[in-house]
């Protein structure tokens, strides 16, 4: 009833080429954006802004970056956190060494640095595939962190290798409060997400998918494999690099190299698998699942144990949360092996017929 494309005609090329061709989708996206840009900054408290939403957006951006590489171009990567680290430490150095550089330019340049590192570690993908390729990215993961800790220049010779994000401002407005940090993060993530959505249906995006589905076949029909694969690594690493820069500058403030350890790479991989491989929306849903679920459990499990009258220690509760978390991952995979984004799509299909399914 509400969600139906019947009667929406596309009469011009411009209409046909919109990112969201359905009116309902456009309204939905607009509503989400109004909510995110206007309502939340006005209504959200500091806890939600700085402890939940900002990290959620940053992780979603990193997941998006990984999804471009893994979901669209089919190249498995376990080095996401290393590319994030490049972004964070590069931003620090640009701000430190280039006086007066605008912060957004520093983010962009840091993203480009990450892209270059990504290309370097993407080179083996021309020959290696699947889980075996993951090792190339694992090499990136460990080598990059090692290099950051060894080369004193990168951390400005800090004894412990820890960097502190400098103060910064945009158009003379200092970005200090949780609201301003959230809005900055949200703006960058929104722009990059729309670009990714657009990328997916462009020539490049289609080339990525052809390579993912079968790279030999893709090369037969004239897709340049080397260019396509390396481009996928570059774009993906750019996204991860910007996410890493935001992780340091709008979220944590002070970071050590180990903040970008293998654990983080895995978490971001979990996000895209749970959310949906090859889906922009999935990156966001997956990030929400992995970031929010432990926190939700943290709220839900103790009252339940209290309500049932079984007195259990905090250690047991913490372990129980871990078990429920693992159990829910399995549960969701069994319900929908293609991720939450697919679940959403099925929902939309149902909605088209609602309330009169045949």
């Amino acid at each position, binding site marked *: 009833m509400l969600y139906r494309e019947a009667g929406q005609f596309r009469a011009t090329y411009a209409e046909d080429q919109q990112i969201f061709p359905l009116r309902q989708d456009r309204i939905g996206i607009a509503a989400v954006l109004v909510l995110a840009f206007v309502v939340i900054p006005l209504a959200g408290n500091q806890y939600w802004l700085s402890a939940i939403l900002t990290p959620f957006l940053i992780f979603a951006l990193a997941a998006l970056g990984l999804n471009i590489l893994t979901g669209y171009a089919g190249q498995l990567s376990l080095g996401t956190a290393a590319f994030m680290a490049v972004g964070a430490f590069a931003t620090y150095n640009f701000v430190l060494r280039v006086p007066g550089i605008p912060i957004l330019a520093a983010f962009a340049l840091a993203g480009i640095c990450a892209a270059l590192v990504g290309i370097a570690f993407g080179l*083996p993908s021309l*020959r290696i595939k699947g889980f075996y390729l993951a090792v190339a990215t694992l090499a990136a993961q460990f080598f990059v962190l090692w290099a950051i800790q060894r080369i004193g220049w990168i951390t400005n010779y800090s004894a412990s290798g820890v960097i502190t994000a400098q103060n910064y401002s945009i158009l003379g407005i200092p970005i200090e409060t949780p609201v301003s940090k959230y809005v900055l993060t949200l703006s960058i993530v929104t722009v990059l997400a729309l670009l990714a959505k657009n990328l997916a249906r462009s020539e490049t995006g289609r080339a990525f998918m052809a390579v993912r589905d079968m790279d030999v076949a893709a090369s037969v029909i004239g897709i340049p494999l080397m260019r396509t694969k390396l481009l996928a690594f570059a774009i993906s690493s750019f996204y991860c690099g910007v996410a890493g820069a935001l992780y340091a500058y709008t979220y944590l403030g002070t970071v050590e190299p180990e903040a970008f350890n293998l654990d983080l790479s895995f978490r971001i991989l*979990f996000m895209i698998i*749970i959310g949906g491989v090859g889906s922009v929306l999935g990156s966001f849903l997956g990030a929400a699942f992995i970031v929010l679920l432990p926190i939700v459990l943290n709220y839900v499990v103790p009252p339940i144990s209290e309500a049932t009258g079984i007195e259990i220690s905090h250690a047991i509760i913490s372990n129980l*949360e*871990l078990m429920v*978390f693992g159990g829910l991952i399995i549960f969701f*995979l069994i319900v929908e092996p293609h991720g939450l984004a697919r679940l959403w799509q099925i929902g939309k299909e149902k909605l088209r017929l609602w309330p009169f399914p045949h």
Partner: protein
Amino acid sequence: MGGPVSFFFEVLFSGLLAGVMYSLVALGFVLIYKASGVFNFAQGAMVFFAALTFVSLVERGVNFWLAMAITLAVMIVLGVLTERVVLRPLINQPQITLFMATIGLAFFLEGLSQGIWGSQPHGLDIGIRDEPMEWLAERTGMFLSQFDLFAAAIAAVLVTVLALFFQRTRIGRALRAVADDHQAALAVGIPLKQIWAIVWAVAGFVALVAGLLWGARTGVQFALTFVALKALPVLILGGFESIAGAIVGGLIIGASEKLAEVYLGPYVGGGIESWFPYVLALAFLLIRPEGLFGEKHIDRV
């Protein structure tokens, strides 16, 4: 005491022996990958779960061998349950989904083992002293631990038994058929579900052995789950499908990472062990993209 030459050999041998310890963990991965095409992220958690269960039983006064038997039984039950609850509903799903399911399993097991047995670390003494062998040290100046040799012997026995099992028994052949194609195996009447349960149980047994040997060295504590990381380059070098590859890969990784750390490390600030195995495996892969002993898959367009 020996000179630089004997020191070189000491580094080499202790590297090889360390590699055996990596291989033990890698074996568990290979078994499951071979039979079900699943990269089992929960292997580390299984190692931890098995070792913790064993050591907790022993500390509660259970006899060593009885504890071993009980733990083995627990691991078999775990394997069967995993097949029932996690894998069976996911038959014919893409590899990455199965991989993710094992991640869920890993979280579950980590919570379960600590929930039951607590998070305190335990010492584990399996009766083999982890000390350099004096007679060898006196004659050659090399310090090699008898524990390492013991571990190597265990690994050798384990690999022989597993290789025989895979090559010579009906179940073994069925396992390989399943690995090739789930549906085809089902079509020719191979009981897929039993096969999976068996292989997960065997992997549980391998996890127990690895857990005991590693646990005796580092203590039984949560960090045992990290030993899985040591197995990754081994797997990639040796191939996911090959038991022989796991052993040879382990030996190469172990020896080369120790040699690199001792002889190259000091010039670049040390700690290169963290990435060296991966770069080495990468170099190998560029020459042979399917791993040392991996099966070559031919792409059809």
